[in-house]
């Protein structure tokens, strides 16, 4: 029997948290028709690449779509007056 998608999703999410190249807990994984779609934010381009690498290792039978984005750092802070 093929592994149910729910288990495969969580296996990947656990791997993304545990793998020292990534250590991200906030990556969302969805699956459809043999494809795995990864979304969420990562801090650096290196980690974004590692997300794709880990996914390919953990789910070799799926077509991986690494749609994570690297968090942008806008230059100027926003200033808010707290009442």
């Amino acid at each position, binding site marked *: 029997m093929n592994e149910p998608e729910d288990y495969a999703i969580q296996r990947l999410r656990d791997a993304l948290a545990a793998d020292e190249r990534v*250590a991200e807990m*906030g990556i969302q994984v969805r699956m459809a028709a043999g494809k795995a779609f990864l979304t969420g934010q990562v801090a650096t381009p290196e980690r974004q690449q590692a997300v794709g690498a880990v996914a390919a290792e953990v789910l070799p039978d799926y077509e991986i779509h690494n749609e994570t984005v690297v968090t942008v*750092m806008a230059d100027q*802070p926003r*200033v808010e007056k*707290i*009442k």
Partner: protein
Amino acid sequence: MIRVAAVGDIHFGQDSAGTLRPHLEDIAEQADVYLLAGDLTRLGDPEEAAVLARELRDLPVPIVAVLGNHDYHSDQEKAVTDVLEGIGVQVLEGTSTVVDVDGTPVGIAGVKGFGSGFAGACGSDFGEPMMKAYVRHTQEAADRLREALDDLARAGVERRVALMHYSPSEGTLRGERLEIYPFLGSYLLGEAVDRAGADLAIHGHAHGGTEKGFTPGGIQVRNVAQPVITRAYNVYCLDCEKESGG
């Protein structure tokens, strides 16, 4: 006027060198103190803390931090703390510090905190030892935060900010999946802030949440997780209204 700069969840690793400092060069013109709301490192490795320390060294404003869950991952939170304190960062855990802003003392009480969920949908101190330990860890953190805020009040410090990693409010979690709220924060933290009083509560941890919220008692809460604010910091100005006349 007290300008509080804050960010959380910068998750520093070896690949983060040089990513933060360029955004901090004019911080003294923008803010009076810089708060770091935990998850300062990726794995809680002191080497990662050292990369961050190099970015923060000799900043012209005081830096006050709490650790986050990632900073505990390698069981080296003490070493991570030592590296940061080595360059003058005040790392709080159930403790407080006072910074002077043009003669006005501003107290910051900090704690990592923990989860358990929010009133009406939270864990209880009941049942198996692990369940009780989970809720008690949060209760203890909340108690220490409340004491630290109370100590500041007793010392006559009128301006107080509560700094946490986990969230004291539901509102700043909007955008996260409801199912994980109990892992993201606790009403016990909000209750501690409400009972002791504070001008502002700052937290991180909820990368998919929302910046602005408030406690059940109406105290303003800001989620400064970097993926939320997408800045090296945002600035929250206390007592700005009266000085600008509106």
